[in-house]
């Protein structure tokens, strides 16, 4: 089970699973029933799938899109594609309720953006995808995942695969504006897995059997590389839970960790918050979390209060604060960039808020508590740079740049975006932060990106939905994320009203709210309808998203006489409209 030195591609790593009966992939359903597939069986299934792809004309380098729930079928489709030398890209399934038009448009664009030849899905999902695949000229066919089990495994012919070729594509945000897929090469993936595996290098076979628990969606980088591929790479058992089952019953996650005495399970900040606030004591009868050594916390901004609440709440069930591990990463770096010390509780420092905000200087003081996300993974380097690309000293806030063997060669078929992403061998993460006593702290984001519940959303996507509401000024809408302590990152929408419109502000806000909720399944924390000209712009007239959200947070956006949705809090009457209005202001009231 010790890691073998420098394998060339994921193909070899998957083939190395031959004879592995002790570890495997386990799927737990809603009622807790478990089905275990040893990795040897997973390999046989993947070879069959690879042969099925090949008999359908799939060749090395062809792109295969996968839209499947967490299931053994996902592993068949994904690993089969890897063994065929093809390049899989896992896309997210349709939202369960909500408008499909936006989903179709996004999915169609993503399929087209990477020149998908084959789409693998299941019968239920496939029935909804008709319109998403219309007009994708590269697409040969849509295949039911069941068809991957029908070829003869022996007919697989081993493809030639270059370690620097993409092993898979990871969409970094599902935007209609410009869908972009990170190319994660075999070398990138293996380099990052080797780095992550330093955590597990010294675990026993029994601990590898206890393994990890993953409810993260497998179309998400932390689920795909951080769980699925890591489980194969080490190898160790991964117990999978459907993400929807975690959402409905968060206790299932902790009970599953306890049941299999898992040593590792990662999740984004929001999941720790959901557990702390929603799980009832009686749901945890007999639960023991003392084996959980690595509760990795990443994929979205980490809220100190949420993290502390989780640690305090579950201490009674054996959860140890040193298990909580703030981490930082992104698909463009393979996945992991920094890990905090796995042997100590989270390291939280308090900095002078004023100096941090105004001068970009981190000094111990009052106002802003930040968790350290730790030190660079072995083999990665981090630099903090200013706007002119000069390296900054410790304690100064700038762009986080990363270099090393797991850094992507760029976005698929997007040389323009790749040129912005990579400069002189360094990856521009688009995130802002500083180094303090050798550890990285994240303060914000330079790139316009909203991250809610670990999901990356381009603001343009939200703005396009809002723009459908009649009565707004064209091109005068801003969507952004705002970190609210104790609540995590929240969606804020700022829109200027067309002076010719006779719609009331609260009516407009309700309309925008409905369009975003139905279009993308996110509820804005606040919608502010503004007078024309309120939103800050650059000298060339472009909207300044980050500045606008900051001004909103500081309450400096609208003149005080402006009757915006936010300021109507006091006069809520018991009508449908009043109810609608109130929730833009305070969801807890």
């Amino acid at each position: 089970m010790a890691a073998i030195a420098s394998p060339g591609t994921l193909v070899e790593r998957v083939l190395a699973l031959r004879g592995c009966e002790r570890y495997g992939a386990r799927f737990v359903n809603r009622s807790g029933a478990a089905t275990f597939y040893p990795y040897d069986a997973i390999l046989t299934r993947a070879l069959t799938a690879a042969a099925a792809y090949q008999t359908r004309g799939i060749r090395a380098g062809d792109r295969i899109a996968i839209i499947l729930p967490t299931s053994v079928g996902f592993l068949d489709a994904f690993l089969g594609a890897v063994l065929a030398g093809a390049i899989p890209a896992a896309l997210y399934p349709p939202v369960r309720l909500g408008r499909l038009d936006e989903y179709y448009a996004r999915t169609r664009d993503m399929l087209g953006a990477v020149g998908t030849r084959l789409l693998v899905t299941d019968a239920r999902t496939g029935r909804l995808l008709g319109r998403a695949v219309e007009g994708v000229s590269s697409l040969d066919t849509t295949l039911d995942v069941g068809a991957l089990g029908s070829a003869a495994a022996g007919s697989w012919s081993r493809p030639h695969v270059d370690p620097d070729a993409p092993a898979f594509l990871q969409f970094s945000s599902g935007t209609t504006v410009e869908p972009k897929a990170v190319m994660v090469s075999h070398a990138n993936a293996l380099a990052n897995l080797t780095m992550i595996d330093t955590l597990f290098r010294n675990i026993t076979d029994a601990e590898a059997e206890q393994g990890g628990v993953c409810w993260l969606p497998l179309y998400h980088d932390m689920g795909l590389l951080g769980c699925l591929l890591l489980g194969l790479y080490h190898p160790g058992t991964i117990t999978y839970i459907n993400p929807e089952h975690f959402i409905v019953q968060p206790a299932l996650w902790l009970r599953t960790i306890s049941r299999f005495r898992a040593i590792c399970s990662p999740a984004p900040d929001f999941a720790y918050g959901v557990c702390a606030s929603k799980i009832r004591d009686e749901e945890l009868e007999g639960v023991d979390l003392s084996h959980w050594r690595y509760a990795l916390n990443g994929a979205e901004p980490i809220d100190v209060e949420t993290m502390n609440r989780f640690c305090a709440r579950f201490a009674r069930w054996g959860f140890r604060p040193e298990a909580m591990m703030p981490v930082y990463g992104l698909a463009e770096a393979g996945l992991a960039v920094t890990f905090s010390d796995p042997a100590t509780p989270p390291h939280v420092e308090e900095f002078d808020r004023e100096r941090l905000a105004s001068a970009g200087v981190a000094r111990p003081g009052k106002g802003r508590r930040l968790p350290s996300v730790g030190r660079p993974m072995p083999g990665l380097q981090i630099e903090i740079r200013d706007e002119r690309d000069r390296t900054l000293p410790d304690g100064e806030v700038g762009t986080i740049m990363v270099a090393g063997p797991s850094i992507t060669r760029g976005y698929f078929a997007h040389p323009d975006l790749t040129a912005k992403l990579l400069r002189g061998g360094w990856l521009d993460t688009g995130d802002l932060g500083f180094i303090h006593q050798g550890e990285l702290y994240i303060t914000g984001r330079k790139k316009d990106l909203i991250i809610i519940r670990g999901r990356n959303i381009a603001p343009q996507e939200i703005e396009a939905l809002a723009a459908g509401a009649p009565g707004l000024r064209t091109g005068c809408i801003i969507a952004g994320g705002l970190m609210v302590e104790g609540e995590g990152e929240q969606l804020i929408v700022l829109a200027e009203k067309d002076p010719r419109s006779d719609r009331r502000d609260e009516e407009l806000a309700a309309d925008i709210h409905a369009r975003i909720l139905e279009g993308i399944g996110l509820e804005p924390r606040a919608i502010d309808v503004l007078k024309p000209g309120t939103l800050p712009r650059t000298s060339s007239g472009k909207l300044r998203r980050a500045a606008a959200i900051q001004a909103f947070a500081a309450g400096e956006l609208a003149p005080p006489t402006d009757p915006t949705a936010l300021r109507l809090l006091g006069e809520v009457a018991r009508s449908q409209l009043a109810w609608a209005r109130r929730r833009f202001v305070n969801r807890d009231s």
Partner: protein
Amino acid sequence: MLNAGKTMSSPQHPSPALTEEAILAFLTAHATDALELPRADVEQITADTRIVEGLRLDSLRQVVLITGVEERFGFEFEPEELAALGAGGTVGDLVRVIQRRAGTAPVS
């Protein structure tokens, strides 16, 4: 109290478990307990309330609502039904789907 409103149709196959009232009672309780809507908000819900917007269903709450209905009424929504309900469907529409489907297919 959740107001059934005037647009509701009566069940095609009335049985004690499937009356409009029983379904609405479940949805009211579910909106309060599982969706955690404030009681005052639940009181505002009528048959004409749009599901996603009216019940404030973000993607997480959508899953909670659907799963709760499936478990309580013993069927699994077809993707097409959900697509229709999500595209501006009302609480009344949901009640009618439940009346039509309840008990028709066991949940896996």
